[in-house]
């Protein structure tokens, strides 16, 4: 996957990714309309299909609301690269088939607007704008298997 980087800092919590006042629905398109609203009102206008979110430590902390990765995915983001993820957000993203990678060096080496290419299978991140390359830890096989099916539900459907 390839896209333009949109960058934010540390401790971005699920309350700013999708505020609770919009949690009376679970419709992905409706949620996407309010994605990141309390952090960056311009997000909705600047995000384009395929863009890559590049963020700091502890991304997605707080509430377990799956509405957060759902809103991000529905807004067009193809992958998230973080220094670290909060654990519930981490599993929610995997479970809904939203690719994510942890790589501190890549986050430091990518600026807003850079064009980034990601190979999640091998954990390779290329900054095409700057001509640099980074290596993230690839997923363990079990998680790769879930991702291969496009999320946990398809995986379970296959197994039951």
């Amino acid at each position, binding site marked *: 996957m390839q896209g333009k980087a949109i960058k934010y800092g540390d401790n971005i919590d699920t309350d*700013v990714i999708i505020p609770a006042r919009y*949690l009376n629905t679970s419709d992905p398109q409706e949620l996407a309309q309010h994605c990141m609203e309390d952090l960056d009102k311009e997000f909705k206008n600047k995000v384009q299909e395929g863009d890559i979110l590049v963020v700091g430590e502890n991304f997605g902390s707080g509430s377990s609301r799956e509405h957060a990765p759902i809103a991000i995915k529905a807004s067009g983001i193809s992958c998230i690269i973080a220094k670290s993820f909060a654990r519930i957000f981490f599993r*929610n993203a995997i479970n809904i088939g939203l690719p994510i990678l942890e790589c501190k060096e890549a986050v430091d080496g990518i600026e807003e607007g850079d064009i980034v290419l990601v190979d999640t299978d091998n954990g390779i991140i290329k900054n095409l704008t700057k001509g640099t390359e980074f290596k993230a830890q690839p997923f363990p096989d079990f998680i790769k298997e879930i991702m291969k099916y496009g999320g946990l539900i398809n995986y379970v459907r296959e197994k039951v």
Partner: protein
Amino acid sequence: MGLTLTQKILSAKVGREVKPGELIEVDVDMVLGNDVTAPVAIKEFEKIGIDRVFDNTKIALVPDHFVPNKDIKSAEQVNIMRKFAKKHGIVNFFEVGQMGIEHALLPEKGLVLPGDVVIGADSHTCTYGALTCFSTGVGSTDMAAAMATGKAWFKVPEAIKFVLKGNLQKWVSGKDVILYIIGKIGVDGALYKSMEFTGNIKALSIDDRFTIANMAIEAGAKNGIFDFDKITDAYVKGRAKREYKVFERDEDAEYSEVYEINLDEIRPQVAFPHLPENTRNIDEVGKVKIDQVVIGSCTNGRLSDMEIAYKILKGKKVHPDVRLLIFPATQEIYLECVKRGYIEEFIKAGAAVSTPTCGPCLGGHMGILAKGERALATTNRNFVGRMGHPESEVYLSSPAVAAASAIAGYIVSPEEV
């Protein structure tokens, strides 16, 4: 190498010794969802294409976030739960009038017990670790998969050990202990790890322990867990309707970090906006004026929290510039507050008392803040916009500090009112 308490419980479930970092699939004893997360889970469950849940006694559905329903959309979300509960004969569906805030309700009903593996599509599911079980928050898709298969996947966590020493000072409670710890280790200080509490835990009531385990997630932890003792036993007895198993950590268990926490040294704590780690001693707060005080939530809506609020508010008046909202966490707690005369004193003092709901804690309903307003709350998060307008502020404290501050009109120590 020995095993931590969490690793012990997970090993027993898997049937062999597990190692930190390993990915495992485990049978769960209880699967929980609320009116925000369960409707999404139900939609996902239906995509799997099976016509029955794995066990209709091991699923709990608790509409508590936007109830009594605040608008048409939230009423429709709860209806999805209600219909699903009827269709699958879910025994533990709690309608308004019987419900409570999920993390106060499930222990009270004896639905989560020592040695259990519990998952809940709510981040504060870690609360039940107070009862020496492994309990953690997950998302809606995890909940859906578990309702179908009875299983969940986990990475076996490392653990941080907190050895408690000494005793709590007057006006200091479990809330101050956990805020103090989060202030020390930070909001990602326990990321992916267990927080295990041992040492002089007899200094902490079961309600203190629920509060502490509840906020383990605010340090990024996978779970918080206490040793089992007489206090746990006394709480569980009479509530449990099935067998349970008591686990102990190995003497030589390996921990990534060990902290000694001297309870005597902890003063009442206040977390400033916009992270729970921004804690200060009450003596270092300065004069912070407040518009609203909220006493309640899955963190501090239990009977002992109501009792301390009662002791402080009795015969006093809420400051005219402050709105005080009090939410007993379950119907049982609410009724006990009525019987003991707490509610009468709350109302006489000028507080608004509500049926159980998560409402204001997450900025859902029943106490939303306007632009520029400031609240002091016994809840668990003070993120940007958490209780309403993105330019409002939330400070976190114990019920004692909250009740005292409601009288003063600004944040004060209970020693001052």
